[in-house]
């Protein structure tokens, strides 16, 4: 069995693949079990390790919207660039966001054109830059799900307690449950179950996912990031489906606790409030799906401190990130995939981040796919 040999425990992987085959049974490959992995980290693992080619045709993995870089709409990147170009500003951002295209270039190009844009590893690094440059405004471009938002919260609390007055945050934090709900409500997608996100769940726990089985009748299994984790989570989902059960289960219990991290949740509640709605790339406006700073942190809120264009910008016509993010099409089915849109010159966000389905597929998946096709041809 190709691919499996590089796994930590090839024998275990083989056993899991065999079990998946049994559980998929005689399901019609034309009507496969469709399982969505919500998290971009899972998408990366799946393509990196050729997992989709280990699965029987009756089990299909559908990539979801859980890449925080990919879901930021162009208009928000334009807002960031406008702030970065404001007089005197030092604009700080995670590396992944630097190459996300806005309607008129990205942050790297803004930097090349004279804006002071700096890459940081952590919001704490951004705060440090503010302390070292007290005479200049320093803005941190905050993106990420509940995994990342507590870090921004702690940083803001520190800035306030230390009396740092030249630091602010352009907040684009999003929450995981509303897009799952939006996808479940979406008429063009029929899913049988979900692989729940790993690291987001270390913060939010398992409880927020209960609506998935309770209201929509679909099982959800929170999964780890190893190939074996993904395979095992698929076994757990198919087992539930086979037994007619429908629950939230935790495959990643060695890291994720059912109750999440109460301390992190408390910090989120202290610093952030839900926005009435937020635009997601490809998914459109989703109500109560993103976080804004509470009024108590107005002095640290770049949205209040700077004039933002705040314009809604439609994605380029050729770009189908929206369909990719909803799992309606596969990366290679996009018209510009690998031709006009590559990791070097991305048109859409899914090609930018290593967790984006298109970049992961471009870097790894297509090779596995080509190999699988060749292998299939030689076998036939």
């Amino acid at each position: 069995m190709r691919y499996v040999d590089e796994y930590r425990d090839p024998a275990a992987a083989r056993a899991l693949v065999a079990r998946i085959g049994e559980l998929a049974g005689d399901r019609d490959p034309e009507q496969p079990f469709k399982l969505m992995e919500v998290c971009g980290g899972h998408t990366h693992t799946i393509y990196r390790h050729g997992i989709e080619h280990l699965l029987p045709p009756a089990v299909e993995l559908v990539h979801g919207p859980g890449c925080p870089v990919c879901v930021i709409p162009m208009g928000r990147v334009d807002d960031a660039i406008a702030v970065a170009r404001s007089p005197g500003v030092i604009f700080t951002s995670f590396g992944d966001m630097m190459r996300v295209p806005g309607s008129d270039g990205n942050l790297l190009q803004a930097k090349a054109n004279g804006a002071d844009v700096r890459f940081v590893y952590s919001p704490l690094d951004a705060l440090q830059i503010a302390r070292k440059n007290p005479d200049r405004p320093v803005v941190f471009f905050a993106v990420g799900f509940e995994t990342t938002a507590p870090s921004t919260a702690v940083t803001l609390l520190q800035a306030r307690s230390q009396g740092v007055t030249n630091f602010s945050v352009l907040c684009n934090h999003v929450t995981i449950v509303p897009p799952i709900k939006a996808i479940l409500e979406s008429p063009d997608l029929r899913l049988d179950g979900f692989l729940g996100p790993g690291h987001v769940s270390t913060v939010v726990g398992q409880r927020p996912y209960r609506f998935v089985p309770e209201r929509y009748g679909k099982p959800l299994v929170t999964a780890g990031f190893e190939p074996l984790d993904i395979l095992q989570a698929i076994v757990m989902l198919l087992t539930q489906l086979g037994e007619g059960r429908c629950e939230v289960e935790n495959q990643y219990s060695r890291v994720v606790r059912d109750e999440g991290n109460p301390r992190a949740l408390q910090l989120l509640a202290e610093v952030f409030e839900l926005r009435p709605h937020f635009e997601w790339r490809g998914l459109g406006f989703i109500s109560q799906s993103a976080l804004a700073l509470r009024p108590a942190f107005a002095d640290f809120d770049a949205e209040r401190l700077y004039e933002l264009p705040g314009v809604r910008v439609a994605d380029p016509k050729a770009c189908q990130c929206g369909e990719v993010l909803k799992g309606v099409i596969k990366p290679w089915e996009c018209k510009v995939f690998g031709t006009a849109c590559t990791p070097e010159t991305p048109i859409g966000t899914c090609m930018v981040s290593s967790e984006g389905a298109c970049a992961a597929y471009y870097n790894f998946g297509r090779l596995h796919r080509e190999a699988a096709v060749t292998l299939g041809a030689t076998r036939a």
Partner: protein
Amino acid sequence: MCLGIPGQVVELLDHEHLAKVDVSGVGRVVNIGLLEDEQVTPGDWVLIHVGFAMSKIDEDEAKRALASLQLMGQAYDDELEAYWSSQIGSETGSEIGSQTEGRG
């Protein structure tokens, strides 16, 4: 950016919930405030995300996570490089960035 990097706590710094952590042989400072209720002590393994310890893990899980990250290739290299560039805690006077056993 959503990767979690496993690291071992070397020393608690008496300042802003910071701790010195060893990741693949390189020492850096991270914030352990989110694990306040879990009483992190030197020797513990933690999963680090954007400069914050997100969860306490056992040594097996740390090794497993590290092995699977190393298989990721470029994405992991980028994350580690970003992590090494971090200056968190560099005002605290601790020895930041001191290489302990060389990069793994």
